[in-house]
């Protein structure tokens, strides 16, 4: 949860980034509270207008196709979206087969190395551990 290069992208790229995350949130047909919180977090970080956020929230109910999402993505926004799509997919504790398939499809569309998704999953695991450390620290304060 730190500042990102995402904010340097033009607004339409940030919108395309968030649209792909909306798609990702619905890949396994259900959206958990964890995924929703992660989606809202990334929506906030993308610094989109309240109206754009509203449209994206509505798209959670009726997401666009993956092809539509990928069409609007530039290379940098695409790589950031892939990275954060991995974070989102893992936010409920596991990346299921459907999610993995979509992530690989995105990586392929972006022309990335074959193990790109695996690299990002490994990075995500480290992030999980770091976040858990912070959580444990707070819990320890309760005494």
């Amino acid at each position, binding site marked *: 949860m*730190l500042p990102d290069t995402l904010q340097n992208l033009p607004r339409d790229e940030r919108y395309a980034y968030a649209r792909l995350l909306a798609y990702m949130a619905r890949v396994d047909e259900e959206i958990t509270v964890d995924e929703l*919180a992660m*989606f*809202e*977090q990334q929506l906030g*970080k993308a610094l989109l207008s309240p109206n754009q956020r509203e449209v994206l929230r509505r798209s959670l109910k009726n997401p666009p196709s993956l092809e539509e999402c990928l069409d609007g993505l530039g290379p940098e926004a695409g790589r950031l979206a892939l990275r954060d799509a991995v974070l989102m997919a893992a936010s409920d504790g596991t990346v299921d087969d459907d999610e993995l398939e979509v992530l690989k499809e995105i990586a392929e569309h972006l022309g990335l*190395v074959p193990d790109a998704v695996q690299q990002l999953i490994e990075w995500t695991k480290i*992030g999980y551990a770091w976040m858990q450390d912070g959580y444990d620290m707070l819990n320890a304060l309760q005494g």
Partner: protein
Amino acid sequence: MFCDGVADLDASERARYADLLVLIAAADGELVREEIQLLEGFMGRAMVHPEARTSIRQGLFDTNRLSNLLKNAEQETLRYVLRDGVLLAAADGDYDRRELRILKKIAVAAEMGEDELKSLFDWVSSGWEWHADGITLAKLPARNGSLSE
């Protein structure tokens, strides 16, 4: 993971959480884009209602509410504020003394000692490294081995 118990707090506590983060962001008298980005992200993760976010954003211009917020916020909320407040204060790459002062006040209210606060700063440093790795990783090379941008 990144979606932790902060979203489970009562709506009023989540609003206080966001209000306090706004005060930390505004503490050094300037608000950079990185701080706004983090603030918006934290409010999103806490699932603060969009209308409530509008009034919370107004708090950037009213920085005299700290003592009231500290008096009314629950301990759990204050601990989340501290954790995310240290992340927020680090967002522009430097801890300003005014940011540190407000963080220390919150730590006192949260009954957190100096060593614990230092641990939190250390934790944030390691998070920066992890996140920087993610930015590097997002420049994953293309299939031909060259950088894709």
